[in-house]
């Protein structure tokens, strides 16, 4: 790769960043995400993990917020602040892993459906449309009920049910790219499927995939909290969803234990909102059709 190419790429990346930074919502979302990710990473350094152990719970059940427990205690007497803090890690890891899986499946199916055409395409699109219509939570519940409980199952259940939208988007974009003359030129020069897809199609499709990813993460985090809330999560891990599951099962509502309910839900809302704001800003920057709108 020559220096000129890198120079041009750097300039393009800088221009994209400048435009993204001009959207206040996107910038706020990005800063929020950075702060939350930093807190999640630093949890083992800043807090004492032993407080998560049920057998060594320091307080009494359902203690309201006090100087000792800033956000009160849960049904076992553990600090809600500590649980919420550590829950961030599981919720983010599951949300991001599920998104990677979903975007991977979606991109593969989408590119294949557009590139190969004919029977392959028809079959793949029929398959995609079927899964697009199928209520994804119902399918995810089925998957996580029949598979052994664990974070891997949750990731699989969300990833395997949320890819169709990405597939449709990628297919449309691939079709648009493949209609352009330089693809014909590449084929005429003897470029095979791997060359055309890897060198020409993917680079053109990836920006859109990236935008889609930020929006998919938001959905995946909500899905994780929903599945864990229904009691399908990993029973040994603390996530925002599993906290809300405990709150519901152990009657936090009738005990008026708002301090147990509000923090984990607020965590979900903030992270999802941050990803959505980033995604919408990125969309306006990277999707030329939307320039000047909104």
């Amino acid at each position, binding site marked *: 790769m020559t220096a000129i190419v890198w120079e041009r790429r750097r300039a393009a990346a800088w221009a994209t960043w400048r435009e993204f930074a001009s959207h206040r919502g996107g910038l706020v979302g990005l800063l929020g995400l950075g702060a939350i990710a930093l807190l999640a990473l630093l949890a083992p350094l800043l807090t004492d993990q032993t407080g998560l152990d049920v057998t060594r719970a320091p307080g009494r059940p359902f203690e309201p917020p006090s100087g000792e427990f800033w956000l009160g205690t849960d049904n076992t007497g553990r600090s809600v602040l500590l649980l919420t803090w550590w829950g961030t890690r599981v919720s983010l890891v599951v949300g991001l892993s599920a998104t990677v899986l979903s975007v991977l499946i979606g991109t593969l199916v989408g590119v294949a459906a557009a590139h190969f055409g004919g029977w392959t395409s028809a079959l793949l699109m*029929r398959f995609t449309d*079927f899964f697009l*219509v199928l209520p994804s939570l*119902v399918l995810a519940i089925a998957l996580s009920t029949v598979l052994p409980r664990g974070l891997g199952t949750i990731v699989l259940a969300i990833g395997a049910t949320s890819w169709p939208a990405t597939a449709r988007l990628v297919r449309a974009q691939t079709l648009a790219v493949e209609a352009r003359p330089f693809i014909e030129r590449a084929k005429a020069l003897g470029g095979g499927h791997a060359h055309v897809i890897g060198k020409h199609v993917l680079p053109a499709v990836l920006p859109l995939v990236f935008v889609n990813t930020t929006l998919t993460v938001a959905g995946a985090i909500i899905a994780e909290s929903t599945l864990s809330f*229904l009691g399908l999560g990993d029973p040994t891990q603390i996530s925002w969803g599993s906290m*809300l599951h405990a709150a*519901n099962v152990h009657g936090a509502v009738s005990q008026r234990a708002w301090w147990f309910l509000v923090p984990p*839900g607020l965590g979900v809302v903030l992270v999802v909102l941050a990803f959505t*704001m980033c995604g919408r800003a990125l969309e306006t920057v990277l999707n030329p059709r939307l320039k000047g709108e909104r």
Partner: protein
Amino acid sequence: MIGHLARKLGGALASLVFVVVLGFFLFRVIPGDPVVAMTRGRPVGSAQIADLRARLGLDKSLGEQFLDYLVNAARGDLGTSYVYNRPVADLIGERLWPTVLLVGTATALAVVVGLWLGIRGAWRRGSRFDRVSTGVALTQWAMPTFWLGMLLSMATGDLFPTGGMRYPDTPPDFLSQSLDVAHHMVLPVITMVAVVYAQYLLVMRSSLLEEMHADYLVTARAKGLRDDLVRRRHAVPNALLPTVTLVFLHLGLVVSGAITVETVFSWPGLGLLTYEALTGPDLPLLQGTFVVLAGAVITMNVLADLVYRVLDPRVRAA
């Protein structure tokens, strides 16, 4: 038109059959041994296990099981619930109407609220009203449905009942029964509307924004029509079309909402039945709710497509 109709119905039928097949695959093939999955973490004797295997038909080969399953499903027999010890189809039949009532009311309200706010926002794009309503909608959309439900039921205290569909001691006459059900419905409906309307608002808003600069609106204004007539008679009907399809396409989301809302408020519908089935886990029951919920969403999508054809002359002619 006839050809299209036949193709659509054929496609829908294929999808329904595929749902039934997927149901078998999910609940019989993936778990390896469903009995192990169903009795996980419980002490069970070998006689009990053998009995359960015979009842589920697991002593036959997988191929025979599949054939039995298909034949039974075609006859409307979805097996027997393991927890309730009753036919799954009967249980689903009992729980269907509460869900239809809840989801129907919530969707209708959400459509009205979402479309109205979306239209107002788009017409005055960038105004304070638009910014606030879009911001609120995005926040609502980011909220897990069940969390909002729990917060609402905690915040309203004893004002509304927080579980079930009716009190046992309500007089049996129609009026008091209806009032009682309505009273129980308030919180679940508000929760569902709050989360679902955001979707409709955003879709309606962007769809109306796309119509805003169309030539026919300039013509309508040039004729001297008042602003709200231009909006009501010209812009909104055209912008409504894509929204109608999306309302139906997002029914899957409504179904998801029903599962969590019914779980939070113990509303005796299909969502709560799904939750009961997964906590068992009662695999035949879960299989039944899976097939019925997925089938319902597919059917609604076909209906949406047909309605769309009737509504939009451009598609009809094509």
